[in-house]
């Protein structure tokens, strides 16, 4: 009798021990992963993080994006590597900072072939690869955007081709969709033009058809620079009503992009793609609307370099990630998520570890950003910007107390200043980074009339 009890006790204890072991291993966080997934990368040029609903924007600019990525990984502090499309986008594709890949607007550089793009790597692994973009800058010869893609479509309306591709694709694919619809001139279909600013009665021409008319009247051809100059000639930058309207036009274009996104998701969902497709939404940089007295995107303030980064991985749940990351980390992350080892010799790192455990300690929260005559280094607490434009000037911001970067603390005896200055200058040396004289960028290039 007693023996029975003893033996039963042994068995119970033994089973308990084994189940504890099992539970322990299943409680460990599993990294986000989907080895048989395809990948869709949706990059929206000029998209500011704060103008998306999912990032708590008061306007309902992006209902479809918001509801879709509610179940995804929401990166609150992702930063682009540059304020301009070309270098930033090459960073997304290569995992390298602009000082490494050296692709700059109008510089006629060729991306070195030992810097493999994410498309090339997907191609090596037998994925079908397609790129849909409608912008001149991604057509830039030498930048490497065509490398690794089976097909590159650069018409302005790629939508039908995108759906054609999805209809017929078999096997794993990497799809890159890029839109420059948010870029100035901020023109909109009349249906949407005033949706966020109905009472506007100023001089800005935001209606696409009216603008075409305006062009004719002014004998302006389809030259992008001319179009921009014409648009801005109708803008009174010192009038807050005009600034508000610019934002409203901009937001209405986000809304239209969001409509497309909704269609895309519905299409994917109806055909079961959402079970085995990773979907990423990001931007190459933001835009200024009179913050710091500037418009468009040249400087390295947060309104330009702070970008949305939303990643949907099937069978995962909403995860907010507050760690500061850089878009150089995006392609190694995407590759890791599908089980491909990312290139070892790039500036970026895989964030898969973070996605599996957002509370993990991450000591590497330093990012850099650069364009031509500026370099910036940023941590969650501090931002240090160096400008070399004839003379050298510095800006140093305490981001916890001055998130809008209005109070330049450089030279005001803040202890951390020298640390950041040294860190930035050390990085410049390590990256063999050289400043480009602003003369190289004339005013029409930047877009200021």
């Amino acid at each position: 009798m007693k023996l029975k009890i003893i033996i039963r006790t042994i068995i119970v204890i033994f089973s308990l021990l084994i189940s504890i072991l099992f539970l322990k291993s299943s409680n460990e966080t599993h990294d986000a992963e989907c080895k048989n997934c395809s990948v869709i990368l949706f990059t929206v040029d000029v998209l500011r993080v704060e103008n998306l609903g999912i990032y708590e924007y008061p306007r309902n600019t992006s209902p479809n994006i918001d509801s879709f990525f509610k179940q995804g990984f929401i990166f609150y502090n992702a930063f682009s590597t540059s304020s301009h499309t070309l270098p930033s986008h090459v960073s997304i594709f290569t995992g390298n900072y602009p000082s490494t890949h050296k692709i700059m607007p109008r510089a006629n550089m060729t991306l070195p072939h030992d810097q493999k793009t994410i498309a090339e790597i997907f191609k090596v692994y037998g994925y079908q690869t397609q790129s849909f973009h409608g912008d001149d800058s991604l057509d830039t010869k030498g930048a490497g955007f065509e490398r690794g893609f089976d097909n590159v479509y650069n018409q302005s309306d790629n939508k039908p081709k995108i759906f054609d591709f999805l209809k017929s694709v078999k096997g794993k694919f990497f799809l890159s969709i890029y839109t420059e619809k948010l870029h100035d001139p901020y023109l909109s279909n009349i249906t949407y033009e005033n949706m966020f600013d109905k009472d506007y009665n100023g001089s800005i021409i935001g209606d696409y058809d009216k603008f075409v008319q305006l062009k004719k009247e002014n004998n302006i051809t389809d030259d992008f620079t001319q179009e921009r100059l014409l648009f801005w000639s109708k803008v009174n930058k010192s009038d807050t009503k005009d600034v508000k309207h610019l934002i409203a036009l901009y937001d209405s274009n986000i809304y239209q992009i969001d409509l497309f996104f909704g269609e895309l998701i519905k299409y994917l969902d109806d055909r079961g793609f959402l079970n085995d497709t990773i979907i990423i939404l990001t931007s190459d940089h933001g835009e200024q609307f009179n913050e710091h007295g500037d418009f468009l995107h040249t400087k390295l303030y947060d309104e330009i370099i702070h970008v949305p980064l939303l990643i949907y991985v099937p069978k995962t749940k909403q995860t907010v990630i507050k760690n500061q990351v850089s878009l150089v980390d995006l392609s190694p992350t995407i590759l890791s998520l599908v089980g491909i080892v990312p290139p070892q010799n790039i500036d970026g790192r895989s964030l898969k570890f973070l996605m599996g455990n957002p509370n993990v300690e991450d000591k590497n929260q330093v990012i850099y950003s650069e364009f031509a005559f500026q370099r910036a280094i940023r941590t969650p607490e501090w931002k240090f910007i160096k400008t070399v434009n004839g003379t050298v000037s510095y800006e140093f911001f305490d981001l916890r107390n001055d998130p809008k970067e209005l109070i330049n603390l450089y030279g005001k005896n803040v202890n951390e200043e020298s640390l950041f200055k040294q860190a930035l200058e050390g990085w410049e040396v390590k990256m063999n980074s050289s400043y480009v004289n602003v003369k190289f960028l004339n005013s029409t290039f930047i877009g200021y009339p």
Partner: protein
Amino acid sequence: MRNTNLIIGFIALAILLVLLYMNLPQGYSCPDCNVIIIAFDAVQTSHVSAYGYPLQTTPNLNNFAKGGTLFTNAISPASWTVPTYMSWFTSMYPSEHKVVNRYSEYEPPNVTILANLRNLTPSAVTLAEIMKQNGFSTVAFTGDAGARGASGDNIGFDVYVDTPIGFNGFDLSVPMALSWIRNNTDKKFFMFLHGYDSHGQYMPKNFTKKYDLNYTGRFNGTVVEQAALREEGLAKGYVNVTDDEIKFWRAWYDEKINDADARFRIFINGLNEMGLMDKTIIIVASDHGTEFFEHGRVDHGHTLYQELIHVPLVVRIPNYSNGKTVTSQVSTLDIMPTIFQIAGIQVNDTVKTQIKGFSLLDAMKGKDVSRDVYSETDYRLFTHKRAIVTKDGWKFILTLAEAPDKKNVKELYNLKTDPMETTNLINSEPQTAYELEQKLLSHLKEMGTNIDGPWVIGCSAVYVDQCKYYAHG
């Protein structure tokens, strides 16, 4: 009812015990045994009869291997002497111990600083130091040149013989070793016994052309001729020799190996006579092989092809694993931790972190320990190469730079289907190429190598009269 419970209980207990047993430290140890490493410098595995070479070049080594374990897939971490013995003595890769050339700085006539482990990697602990700390007398009888003590090879050795200056063989080191043993029977000893007998710069004592009696060409088989061929290959990238000449030089090599094997027998006989075979752990290996025109050139250090890095390795533990063969791919970095495990030596955490090899004891028990291994060379600043050999037989070689003008060249070989490495698959197997490149780069990153750094091509002489082809300072 009761019986069933009893059975279940016993099974549970048995499982528990098995689990416990599997986790207990295991191993054969012989803490009172002597330990000898015998290094046949420069012997290519495929010229050793125990590995299937049709000529009977090494009857004594074959015999010896019958009493031990023959490793058929041992890879060296480097392809020439200077970095390799330092790797054996530290179980670190050359990039880590940093003794990668004879000189660490070479800008004659003003700056010629000999590479020394103490200066380059002061934190490294050597095999001899640890053996000494554990009660062994530590002695070395070497043939000088690349095994010269001044590099730091002598650290931890009570006795380190590297004279006379030159490339000396077992003909000198074996008698010294036997004599020392005879006069020092009181303590257990750790010995490094080395001979350059098979090396290209070792002049054979009595060259009979026994493996190529009919040769009547321009070569006499002198070290001067061999050196000239070596330098020609380094300067041009290839050497112009006929098939007959290739046959001759291989015969020259085989005869030297055969001579070394005979001298090895004298040493083993000596140990036998002293009754030490049952009390001594003996490891026989080569630091690297020698190319004899398999890839168009002669000598070693200049590439990382299998003829240079696939080395013979035999481990003999008294009364243990006789005549076994291990086919798992291993590295000669494993020699040091193997010795520790067999000798029952515990090392602290610092040394554990330093050691990059793994004990071969599990392999000798029949476990498959095959793993990816790495190799590198920066031979005389003439070339900088890094390679990975995977356990599946894929080989990826990255040439960071090589004289005169190679930069960032990649090679991929399938050793199973192309063991002679004749067909570069770098373009036809892009996925394997990519994956292996990332593995190699990751390994280099772990060692702190910056592959974007400037890879200097110049000349770091090993002998005084080198560098005449290179006008670099």
